[in-house]
């Protein structure tokens, strides 16, 4: 699962490999770090120090999210997030490799997290932190989503050769060979689902 922010005419803003590496690193480290600081700011007490810690955590999260919206319309994000029919053979090949890498990392993280939760819930002699409120689980949900969207792109940023400087300005600003088409049926399905869900909810309650 990934996310790609397609621009109106399908033009892809240029992002250097160095900036993509930096942005993906900021996302992958900034969000968990910010979440940990914000959620645990209460440990610093009730005063201004706790509030300052909370704001620091929120700032780190905002920086991570801004970095995500920097990479969202990029060529690398297009490879992992665009509909497969819009990609050429090299891009589909790169997507497979990026997804395989992300799968290995995510399954490792999920296994480690479940092991941690099992230990934290089982052994009462240890006072390990576990998520126990809506805020905790909400933060984890958005973090997992952000990792799903960013890990494949991070793989590409660290493995693809940097050839952006070889292209002329005309080439770099060109629209993709396969121009994206609006999937009206998909939008129709989403709107119909929303209306159907709303009606169903009203009928049940």
């Amino acid at each position: 699962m990934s996310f790609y922010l397609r621009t109106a005419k399908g033009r892809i803003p240029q992002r250097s490999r160095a900036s993509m590496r930096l942005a993906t690193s900021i996302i992958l480290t900034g969000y968990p770090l910010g979440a940990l600081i914000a959620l645990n700011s209460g440990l610093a007490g009730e005063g201004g120090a706790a509030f300052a810690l909370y704001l620091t955590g929120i700032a780190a999260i905002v920086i991570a999210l801004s970095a995500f919206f920097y990479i969202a319309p990029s060529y690398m994000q297009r490879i992992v997030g665009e509909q497969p029919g819009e990609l050429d053979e090299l891009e589909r090949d790169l997507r497979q490799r990026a997804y395989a890498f992300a799968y290995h990392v995510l399954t490792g993280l999920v296994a480690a997290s479940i092991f941690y939760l099992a230990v934290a819930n089982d052994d009462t002699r240890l006072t390990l932190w576990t998520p126990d409120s809506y805020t905790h689980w909400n933060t984890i949900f958005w973090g997992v989503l952000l990792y799903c969207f960013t890990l494949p792109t991070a793989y590409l940023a660290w493995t693809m050769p940097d050839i952006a400087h070889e292209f002329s300005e005309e080439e770099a600003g060109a629209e993709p060979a396969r121009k994206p088409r609006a999937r009206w049926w998909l939008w129709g399905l989403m709107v119909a689902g929303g209306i159907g869900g709303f009606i169903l909810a009203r009928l049940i309650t």
Partner: protein
Amino acid sequence: MSSPIYNRLPVLRAERGLSRKALADAVGVNFQTIGYLERGDYSPSLELALKLSEYFELPVEMIFSLREFQPLSSLAAKGGQ
């Protein structure tokens, strides 16, 4: 590990005064893919190789090779001897 595939795409493109974008549009890929092909960072599928061969009106083995192509200057020198 697969062996590298060498190609004459930059020479053929320069010969015909084509941009990467023009060649990419002609064979239905994105211009970045032509860039990766030219650098040898990517080996094309049989389909793409055949499309390029058809576009340049040359046999596939004149565009792609498992062995490094000799520079045209050295070929010309041999021909002159």
